[in-house]
């Protein structure tokens, strides 16, 4: 069974800190995604990656960057955390970009609080 592991379940950071959210998947998936989940807004795509060292902006990339140095690991970086980045962050992976062929596999999320 595919496992997507997010390194932290809860994280509290101060405004202005640089924050790293880590995600690892164990099924050799090429495609990985970072979403942000807020009440009443559903999931919004921050960044995604189709291959190592490749990245593309999603719908809300401002204030974030990503790193994909290895196939199994996709990191989300908050360069200078702000209180409006307090949220639940979800990582996901999928083997085939034709999403009809297989489901998106999600991690359990990291709840980040910026004070």
């Amino acid at each position, binding site marked *: 069974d595919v496992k997507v592991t997010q390194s932290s379940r809860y994280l509290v950071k101060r405004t202005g800190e640089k924050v790293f959210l880590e995600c690892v998947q164990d099924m050799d998936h090429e495609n990985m995604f970072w979403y942000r989940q807020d009440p009443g*807004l559903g999931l*919004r795509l921050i960044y995604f990656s189709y291959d190592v060292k490749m990245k593309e902006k999603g719908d809300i990339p401002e204030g974030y960057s990503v790193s994909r140095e290895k196939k199994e690991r996709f990191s989300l970086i908050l360069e200078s955390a702000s209180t409006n980045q307090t949220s639940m962050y979800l990582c996901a992976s999928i083997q085939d970009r034709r999403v009809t062929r297989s489901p*998106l596999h999600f991690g359990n999320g990291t709840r980040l609080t910026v004070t």
Partner: protein
Amino acid sequence: AQSVTQLDSHVSVSEGTPVLLRCNYSSSYSPSLFWYVQHPNKGLQLLLKYTSAATLVKGINGFEAEFKKSETSFHLTKPSAHMSDAAEYFCVVSGNRGSTLGRLYFGRGTQLTVWP
């Protein structure tokens, strides 16, 4: 452009009664549609998907959804709710071409409460 609208942010039902979670979609071409469920403190799990085969799609845990092109709807139903169905449900449409390939567009979610 692809988008989905979940018509209810909250739905409450009694255990044993039918469940209806409503979703309308917008897509430039034939869509692929999904329902995902998120239980408290868990990641999202795929319930079912429509991919242009049968319009009535059966999923896990007794859920099913019907694709109605004329109404641009993909409502989720279950004949009899169980306490364990209490969760948040997301209707999702996928991008199928070009730069949208592989991207999923999520609705805002419907929180389902099941009363004993």
